[in-house]
Each structure stands twice: as C-alpha cells, then as structure tokens.
C-alpha cells in the first residue's frame, strides 16, 4: 500500500479530528456556564466539607467582581467563561489494544523523545500487560514515602484526609483575590496535587518518578499545594515532555509552595501543551499562577521548560519573607509558529540578607512572540538584599519577536541589583559553520539552542534534562527553511 504524502497527511488530520470528539461524549460533564450552583455542585461532587464550599463560593464572588488582566503582551480571543463546562469526571483514556492504534504522529514524537515502549503505552492509554506492573512500582514508591511521613496525594484526598493542613495553608501564598485567574481557579479547581514533607525529612526521590508512573491527571483547573516543613527538602517535577493534547482551551492552574525555616523546595516544570497548528489554530491558553513563600534560611528554586500552549501567561514567583532566604528562577521558553508567551518571575525581597537569581532564556521562531516580564522588589525592611537577573533572547528568522520587561523597585539603599540582557539571532554564519563540519541545519539549530539554554537545562533533574533537550529540538523542527 503506497500512500502519497498528501493522503497520509489527510488521514492524520481526520484522525486527530475524530480523537477530539471522543472525549467530548462524557456523561459526567456538567452543563456549561458558571454560577453559584455550579460551584456548590463541584464541591458536593467531591464530598467536600462546608469550609471548602464556602471558600470556593467566596472566591467565586471575588472573581465576578474582577476584570481580566490586560497588561500582558498577548493577543488572543478572550474565552467565553460561560461557554465552558467546569467539571468533568476524570477523563477516560481511549482504550486501545496496542500501539498500532495510536496516532502515528504521536508515536513519532514519543520515539524522538526516547520514551520507552512501556511508558508510551501508558501515556497513550494502551492497556498494559503483566510484564510491567506499574501499579506495584507505584505502590513501592508510596511505601517509601509513607515510611518517611511524606504525604503525597490528590488535593481532593488531602481535603478529606488532611483538612487541617489544607485549611491552614491553602490560599495563604496566592490569595483568592490575587488575580482574575487565581480567583477563578479558587472557585472551581477540579483537582491537583498535595504534598507535605515533615520536619527534617529529605524526600528520598524526585517526586517526578512517582508522578510519571501514576500520571496524575492534568485537569483544566489544577490546584497544587506543597508544604516543606522545617529543614526538609523536596524536588518536585510536574508535567511531562510527552505532548499533551487536550480539548480544553483554557487552563488556569494555581501552585502554592510553602518553605518553612531551613527548608528547600526545587520545583521543575516541563510544559508541552498543544500549541496549536502551524497556522495558529487551536492550542491551549495557559494562565498559571505560581508562587512560593520562603521563611527563614529557606530556598525555593523554580525551573521551567515551556514549549507548549498557544498562549502562556505565567510568572512563578518567590516571596522572600524570611531572613537569609533564597529564591531562584530558571526558565527556558520556546515559541514557534504563532505561539505567544508572556512569562517571567517576581522576586519579592522582604527579609534581611535575601538573595534571588533569575536566569531566563527565550527562544522565538516562526511568527511567535516571546516576552520576559519580571519584577524584583526590595521592600524597605530588606537589608542587604541581592538580586542577579539575566535575560537572554534568541531569535530565529525575521518574523518573530522577543521582548523584555524588567521591573525593579528598590526601597532599601543597601540593595544590590544586577540585570543583564542580551538578544541574539541564530546567524546564517553559525549554520554555515556547522554545515561545513557535516552537521545538517536542523541538528545545528538544536545544538545552538541547547547551548543557549544550557544554564537552565543543567538545573533540571538529570532524568529530565535529556528529554527536555530533545523536546527543545522537536519544538523547533522545521522552523528554519
């Protein structure tokens, strides 16, 4: 059977189309629109206690009185919030018998990422055979965690089983009225993760490992709450390098981190939501609020690799409340075709001798727009605060844009703030040089982009660094003639 290129393409297109319609037929989906009744219904569906229902209702009230932010460097059609269904039962994956039934495009990507066959099956929803018993692996992880007193579960379970902890901390870092999307999330969050590391405990594994086996569902309005008690340590990785196709256009997640005295949290994200097609149709709107609070001598380190979504609006931030606390932000944002990203961080220095580091790398290709927006704020009490920021942009081609919006507010004279920025373009001379050494153009671009992003890639957990590197290559495929 010989397919022509055209036929093959057509078939793939229709396949995708079919796929998109499958998940729509879900009996457990609420009617569209948002009202008090819907908020109550969500809470009820999840068997939540009254305080949680009230909390959600309060958030809903706040949200109704708020306006969508318009300060970002993004252009998109505002979603119709009354046209969205705010609750779907956990999505059923299509039940496929073998990998042969999976979209070949998807498999191609998996292979490029070097994802193992077993994991490919799991990610694409192919029934697993006995050879890999992922459940038992996950269980053994769970045992290890439990031994140490680490709580790691869905936020819904946490509300049920650890209500004191949740009630004490939820909304303390990102208040309901913080911003439009945070308020919306507070009212309707469907699920997410909860993690508590007890005093003095060093979490013995990257929580990603567990995550990847359990594939915590990534919903439309995720809520994550992570508490590292005194002198504890945890490294947490969310997301997946595998492409996430989701018909939900709007994603508004909230992530709150709490690092108590002497604790350290390393939070890494790899985001690869569907970015829309080559012509800029479809794609996910990703409006995320992420913030951590640092108590005395604690440290929060955000690392993110952003390659997906049509529109990204995201500023993982640190409130350096404690003395001698440290905030770090390492980011690579890649945009191609018609993608838009407005991302960066806020470092709020409140305690004495607080330090923050910002390394942001933006790669723009195609007709995309990539903005860094960052705030470094030194409050009057923050003696001897130090910040170092470095924002580098790499452009490919002539139709894309890179923008840097650094805001600096220093209210204490002892502050030391450094900001470095650079913009460069992948030069034809660089490509020619690589070509002359036998490296083809696509590989050359990958090499240059990886070199450009190295400082950030180095911050990722080892197991993910390699995949993230490949992900960067894939995201930029075909971006240069």
């Amino acid at each position: 059977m010989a397919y022509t290129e055209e036929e093959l393409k057509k078939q793939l297109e229709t396949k995708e189309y079919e796929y998109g319609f499958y998940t729509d037929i879900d009996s457990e989906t609420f009617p569209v629109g948002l009202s008090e009744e819907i908020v109550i219904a969500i809470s009820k569906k999840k068997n939540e206690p009254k305080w949680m229902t009230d909390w959600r209702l309060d958030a809903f009230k706040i949200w109704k009185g708020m306006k969508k932010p318009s300060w970002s460097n993004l252009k998109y059609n505002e979603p119709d919030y009354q046209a969205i269904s705010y609750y779907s039962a956990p999505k059923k994956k299509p039940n496929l018998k073998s990998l042969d039934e999976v979209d070949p495009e998807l498999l191609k990507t998996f292979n490029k990422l070097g994802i193992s066959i077993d994991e490919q099956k799991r990610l694409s929803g192919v029934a697993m055979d006995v050879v890999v018993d992922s459940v038992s692996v996950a269980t053994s992880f769970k045992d290890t965690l439990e031994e140490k007193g680490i709580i790691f579960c869905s936020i819904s379970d946490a509300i049920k089983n650890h209500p004191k902890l949740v009630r004490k901390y939820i909304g303390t870092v990102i208040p309901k009225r913080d911003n439009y999307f945070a308020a919306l999330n507070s009212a309707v969050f469907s699920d997410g993760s909860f993690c508590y590391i007890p005093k003095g405990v060093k979490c013995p594994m990257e929580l990603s490992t567990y995550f990847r086996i359990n594939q915590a569902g990534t919903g439309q309005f995720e809520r994550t709450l992570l508490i590292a008690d005194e002198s504890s340590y945890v490294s947490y990785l969310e997301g997946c390098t595998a492409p996430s196709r989701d018909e939900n256009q709007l994603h508004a997640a909230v992530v709150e981190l709490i690092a108590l005295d002497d604790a350290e949290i390393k939070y890494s994200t790899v985001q690869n939501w569907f970015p829309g097609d080559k012509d800029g149709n479809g794609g996910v709107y990703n409006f995320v609020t992420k913030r951590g609070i640092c108590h005395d001598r604690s440290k929060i380190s955000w690392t993110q690799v952003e390659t997906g979504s049509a529109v990204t609006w995201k500023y993982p931030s640190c409130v350096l409340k404690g003395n001698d606390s440290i905030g770090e932000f390492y980011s690579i944002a890649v945009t191609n075709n018609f993608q838009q990203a407005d991302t960066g961080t806020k470092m709020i220095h409140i305690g004495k001798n607080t330090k923050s580091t910002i390394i942001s790398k933006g790669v723009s290709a195609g007709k995309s727009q990539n903005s860094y927006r960052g705030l470094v704020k030194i409050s009057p009490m923050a003696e001897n605060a130090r910040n170092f920021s470095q924002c580098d942009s790499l452009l490919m081609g002539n139709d894309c844009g890179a923008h840097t919006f650094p805001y600096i507010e220093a209210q204490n004279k002892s502050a030391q703030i450094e900001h470095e920025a650079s913009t460069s373009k992948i030069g034809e001379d660089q490509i020619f040089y690589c070509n002359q050494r036998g490296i083809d153009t696509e590989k050359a671009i990958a090499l240059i982009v990886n070199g450009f992003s190295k400082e950030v890639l180095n911050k990722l957990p080892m197991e993910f660094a390699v995949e993230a590197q490949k992900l960067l290559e894939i995201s930029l495929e075909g971006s240069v003639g």
Partner: protein
Amino acid sequence: MLEIDNLHCKIDGKSILKGVNLKIKKGEIHAIMGPNGSGKSTLANVISGHEDYEVTKGSIYFDNKEINDLGVDERAHEGIFMSFQYPVEIPGVTVTNFIKTAINETRKSQGLEDMSSSQMLKKIREKANLLDMDSNFLSRSLNEGFSGGEKKRNEIFQMAMMEPKLAVLDETDSGLDIDALKIVANGVVKCSNDDNSVIVITHYQRLLDYIVPDKVHVIMDGKVVKTGNKDLAKKIEVVGYDWLKKSN
C-alpha cells in the same frame, strides 16, 4: 582529488570568480595567493558550497564526481573541510561536544555508528596534544572569548579530528604570532599525508616556510594568473603583485 573547471560565480549579482581552473592531486599541498579582493576566500566558500555564492558557469569535481549540486553538509561528509578565516562563536556548546557532534553526524551519513566515548576521548587527547592545547580549552564554549590564535588552533584541531580528504585553510595565518603560527603549521604538516590534499590560502609567504607547497597559484580579479612553485611565493613577498597585473 579536486578539479575546478572554468568556475564562474556571483554574489549579490556581482561577478567574483571569472573562470578559475585548478587541479589538485592526492597528497599535494597547494597555496593560493593574491591581493585583497581577488577572490581567494570566495573560492574557499564556493568549494565548501556556501549558498550565498551562485555558480554561474563551470564545475567542481571532487574524487571525480561533480559536486556543484551538493549541500554544504553533504560536501563535508564527502571529506571537504574548511578552516575559517573568522570562526564563529557558539555559546554554551563546548569544543568537545561540537567536535563529537560533527564526527558522529559525518559517521551517520556514512552509515556508521557513533564513535565510542573512549575512542573519541583518546582521539581528542591525541590531537589536542598535537596542537599543544590544554584540556580546559576543550570544555570551553566554542570560540567564545577565544583569542585569534586560539580560534585558529581550534580550527586545525577540528581538521585533525575530522581527517578530511581535502582541507581548505582560509587565511589560517592571519592574527597569529610566530609561535602560534609554528604550532598551527606543524599541526597541518603532521596531518597531511599521501592520501589527502591541502589548499592554503594566504597573503604572506611566511606560512609557506612551514607548510611547503607543491604548487603556488596567484589569483587576481577572479582568475588564476600565475602558477609556480614555492619560489613564486618568495618572489611575491619581495616584489608584490603588480608585475603580474602588467603581464596579464
């Protein structure tokens, strides 16, 4: 090895090469000299296949095969290497990582597996020694913050690693002090053997004291106007190019 037949080329609509003929046999070293703007570097770029240069007439044969239509990387895979007059910087990519990628991509094109790390390391050490490079040089970003001499040494290091059939050295001597010049020239001489060929493009004959050419060609206004042996280079050093212009 390389045969250039009546080669004409243009860049931005402007004619640069106007009928170059050149024949280089296996094991030979040829020098190409000429005043500024005569077309020396253009010739190097055209042999490499740079797309900005439009070949309007004539052919380039490599190993008896016409390569006019081959891309830059394909020519590299065939065994053509060019040492750049101005090597580019690639931040964040180490010398080691770059050369590893270059070698493995070339091997891939020949249907070979990646070179093993131990073999690669051994080779890197050997060739780095040849050019008197210390090991921390290898972990630095490619050409970033390199001195002129380091850049050129790095080019010849890459040549030594890739073991091309034909190496085109474009003004490898420019920006080198005499000690660095000796090291670089020695490296080239040690790499050259009966099976490969070298084209040395230079302004000055001093490089040719160390890399002794079998033939010297003088290019002026896009054509080879004179071919001779190493004495021709010596004569030019003394009297310049004007006499060639008059006899032309």
